């Protein structure tokens, strides 16, 4: 099935010439820091099978990082107020120096943790299933997946000024039976994501009808 999903890059290189019925194109970036990556060739995940191919790798839209980045910038410049408000003057000089070092060390940890949380909380669409990877804190993770043929309904919502301006929103995926429902939160181009998932489901149904199920 993977041959029916083609990126913009492939289209330009002519790999999609002779588009067949039911063929879809997934447009997206190849930048590893992007929140919407199509057909990433160098991305693998722990439960991936040999034949399984990643079609979309999604993260929360980059604009959702602005609050912690703004806070980090504020915290970075916060020690500049010390000459105006001498809060640490009661400490000996060596303790003042250590306080400053500890401050920037903790700020580094805050920035790194925030980046890790954004970078590794991903939503993966493969040619067989959808996977939601959540890292809640330092050592707790939750991976939820749903097979493509179990998808019943896919909807998306884009509400609010920021979401409308930057075109990101939540994609809700309802599944049949005991499979968990999935929610892709604040992903870019939710309409495109829904389209890809719907096409994926259609292809799975066709595979079942044609007896080509892996």
């Amino acid at each position, binding site marked *: 099935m993977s041959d029916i999903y083609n990126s913009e890059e492939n289209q330009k290189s002519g790999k999609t010439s002779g588009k067949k019925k039911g063929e879809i194109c997934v447009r997206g970036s190849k930048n*590893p820091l992007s929140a919407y990556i199509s057909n990433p060739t*160098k*991305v*693998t995940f722990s439960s991936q099978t040999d034949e399984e191919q990643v079609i979309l790798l999604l993260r929360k839209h980059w604009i959702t990082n602005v609050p912690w980045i703004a806070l980090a910038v504020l915290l970075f410049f916060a020690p500049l107020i010390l000459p105006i408000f001498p809060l640490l003057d009661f400490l000996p000089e060596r*303790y003042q120096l250590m306080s400053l070092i*500890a401050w920037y060390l903790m700020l*580094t940890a805050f920035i790194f943790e925030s980046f890790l949380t954004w970078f590794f909380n991903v939503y*993966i669409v493969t040619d067989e299933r959808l996977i939601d990877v959540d890292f809640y804190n*330092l050592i707790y993770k939750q991976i939820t997946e749903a097979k493509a043929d179990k998808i019943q309904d896919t909807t998306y919502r884009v509400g609010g000024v920021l979401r409308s301006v930057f075109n990101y929103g939540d994609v809700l995926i309802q599944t049949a039976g005991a499979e968990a429902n999935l929610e892709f939160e604040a992903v870019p181009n939710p309409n495109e994501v829904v389209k890809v998932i719907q096409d994926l489901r259609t292809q799975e149904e066709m595979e079942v009808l044609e007896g080509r199920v892996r």
Partner: protein
Amino acid sequence: MNLSFESLLAFFTSISVWDVAKYFVSFALLLYVAFAAVVVRQAGLMTETLHDQLAVFVKTVAFIHLAVAILVFFLGLVIL
């Protein structure tokens, strides 16, 4: 007994508050080193779950952070 009490009192009055603070700060920095080690483990688990081009970069940053935390711990022991 009286002499013993006086010597005990002299001992406690000779302790500077900054000496006590040094132990607390050192302990806090040691806890931070433990936290940095957990971050290294976390980065390892994350890159195992999702492996891409930036995996090496993420693990390197985590190790540098741990190294700096250890360095700051020893720096604290020396300068405080």
